[in-house]
Each structure stands twice: as C-alpha cells, then as structure tokens.
C-alpha cells in the first residue's frame, strides 16, 4: 500500500530494510518507522488491549497516545510510530503490559 504516484511528493519505494515481525521476514524502505513499514505490508493490528485483548492499531502517529506499542528487540512498550526502522530489528506484537526486560 505504498504511494507510487503523487502530484507533489516522491517516495523511495525500494524495500531494502529487512526486519522480522512475529517471526516473519518483512521489508521496509529507508525512512520508514516500524509502524509505517508494517502498515505498508498490510499489517494494521499492532497490539492488544491489556484487559479485553481487543486489537489495537496506531492512532496519532506522532508519539502521543501509546496505541502503537510493540515489543522491539525484546523491549516492550516501544512507540513504533516514531521509532525508525533499522535492519535486523525483531518486532513482535505486544500482549499485556509487557515484561520488564534485562539488558
């Protein structure tokens, strides 16, 4: 779902950054955040609500609301909408509040 033709903007659409999502290999482009790369691959559900386990996607996309929290490289509650995508990142859906991780 990447924009190919746009009257004002031009985008890099070559997906060269490989990362893993729930164990699957996916690719994003230079400049993506984790959330934008996932969305471009058709993945809208990023986490589940803590108590009722309802699906959650992003909402604000600028780091305000925590609706996009995921576990990234073992760290829970990462706001994926403002975290730049890096090669080799391990991204997983977050269940519950997330466990405190050890470095």
């Amino acid at each position, binding site marked *: 779902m990447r924009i190919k033709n746009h009257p004002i903007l031009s985008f890099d659409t070559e997906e060269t950054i490989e990362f893993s999502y729930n164990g699957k290999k996916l690719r994003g482009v230079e400049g993506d955040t984790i959330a934008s790369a996932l969305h471009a691959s058709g993945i809208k559900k990023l986490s589940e609500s803590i108590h009722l386990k*309802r699906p959650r*996607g992003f909402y604000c996309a600028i*780091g305000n609301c925590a609706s996009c929290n995921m576990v990234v490289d073992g760290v829970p509650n990462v706001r994926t909408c403002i975290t730049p995508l890096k090669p080799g990142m391990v991204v997983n859906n977050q269940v519950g509040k997330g466990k405190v991780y050890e470095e």
Partner: protein
Amino acid sequence: MKNKEAVIIGAGPAGLKAAKQLLEAGAHVTIIDRNKKLGGQLVKQTHKFFGSEKQYASFRGIDILEILVQGLKPFEDRLEILNETSVVGLYKDKVVACVKHDNFFKIKAKSIIMATGASEKHLPFENNDLPGIYAAGAVQTLMNEYGVKPGDKVLMVGSGNIGLIVSYQLLQAGVDVVALVEAAPQISGYLVHASKIKRLGVDILMQTSIKRAIGKDQVEQVEIWELDEVWQGIPGTERVLGVDTVCISVGLAPLTELLMQIGADVEYIRELGGNVPRIDFRYETSIKGVYACGDVVGIEEASSAMVEGAMAGIHAAHDLGYTVEDESRKLKVLQEELKFLRSGPHAAKVRAGYTKLEVKT
C-alpha cells in the same frame, strides 16, 4: 546532569522561531523533539498556506519548514538539536528529563520554552478502538511523511480545515474518500477547501455522524446516521458504508501535561481547545523563566505559532540578559501581525478564548 541555557521543547513552527530569536541575540539553544525530523506539523503539510504574506502564505508547509531550518544554519555552533528525544518529565528547578532510544538523561535549563503543540482528539462510538480508525493528522503523517496509504476507502469525520485538507490529500494519494460527515449544519473549515473536494466527488453529509464501526480485527464497514439539532442520532436514518479506514478530525487539544507537572497555572478554556497555561503578554507562564507558545497555549495555526514563538524567544533572550537588537520595534511589529492573523471571522473563537484567558495581545 548537563547545564544548558535556553531549552526549547518541541521543534514545530513555534519552537523553531523561538530558537531563531534566541540564537540571534547570542544565546546557547537546545531544541528537543521526539520526532526525527524538525518541523512539527509542518513536516506533513503539502498544501499551500493561508494567512499573511509575512508568515509565508501561499507557500507549502514543507517549504516553510525548509526556510525555518535554514534560518538556524548560521548559528550552528551555539545550537544543539536533540531529535528522537522525548521529554518525559519537567521539574520546578527547570530540570528536563529526557529519553532518547534506550537512554534516560536529565538536563538543567536556565530557561525553558514550551512549544509542544497539540494532540488530536478522539470521538466516542461503538468499536472506536478498531485498527483502521486513525486521527486525520496521523493519516496525513503516514501518507505525506512515509508514503504509505492508510487503506483504500475512507470515511472522514469532521469538516474543519484538517478534515477537508486531509480528504484532499487522500485523493491526491489515490485513496477513495467515500464520504465526509459533519455533525454541525455548516462546514467548519474554509469553504474553498470544501468546494475543492466536493468537485472531486466526495459526498459531504451535514448533520451526520458515525454511529459505530464494524469489523473483527480491523474496520470493514461503518454505520452512519443523521443527527437532530442537539446532535443526537435519529433512529431509522442509519446507513452502512463499506470502508476500511475512518479518519477522525474533531479538533485538537493542547499538550499541557508537562506544564501541569511543574505546577504552572493551567485553565480549561474550551475555545482554545482544552487546558492551556496562563501566560502573560510576554508569553511567560506562572513559573519564572518558563515560556509557552504555539498550539500549546491555544489551538490556532502555524502562522500564529510562528509569531508567538518569535515573541517568546525575544522575551526569553531578554530575561537571560541578552540585548535583542531593536527589541521594542520588533515586538510591536509581531503584535500587529498577530492582531491581523486573528482579525478574520474564522478567528472569532480564538479571540473569545484569549479574552477569557485575559491575555493582552
């Protein structure tokens, strides 16, 4: 803990203009923003701006941003930019707690300029938490900053300028805007924007709102219904639309939480979008050496955010002991510009809000 002179929180039009004034006066400036790119809301604004020529009317937001950032270039030796850095705490002694990636650190500032902008509001309706329901500005970010479409078929909720402009930008990106619903009986943004999307075939439905979203793991359909004069849904008028995305554009709320944390006086003023700090005519909050400007002191526009930012920057520089060249004339010109920007019928709400806040601008 590192000591800094002027710390600006938020690198939108307000923060960048404040930085320019402080740097010109000779101060050392640290700009903090959680985003990677500087510019706040301007980063995603591909449309041409209204307003006054002095505030770059008819320029696109992204081009204004370039001008603002270039303006800081001559002062690079006194400017520090902490991007991808979130301010998570603020203390009375002007200690700013920050998180950058995995690092937590604190800095101590002599003066602080709050230019954190605003966050988009949500709307209560059944299933309003499903993936596929996004703030309109979020969709703008996704499309214009990252080049990704939010979906194929969109329902836009709200006819303010953001709703209208994002509808147009969705069409530009090749996304179908199935309908725009508005609870009020009239369009709340500029009519030119509304006519533009109407001409392009968007169904604009007045006195109509979303009743519920339908879908399991994401939005598959929505139900809309008509509203009566007191904004209650009218049973029997429901219609189901096939959309995979709902954009919510029902206003913004100032990001005042950090100011509340340090105990600055804050007041709820509906016309300004919610809780706003009490500021005096020098843009200083109730805490000495802490200033606020831009959307965080009242939801307005980038044009007024720039003027306010410049004024806050001048006062902060003055209070730090720097001589601002031509200070009183500069301030007078800025006051006039702000007055002009707030003179039209669309600014009536803002004018009422500031009257309530008793700011003498």
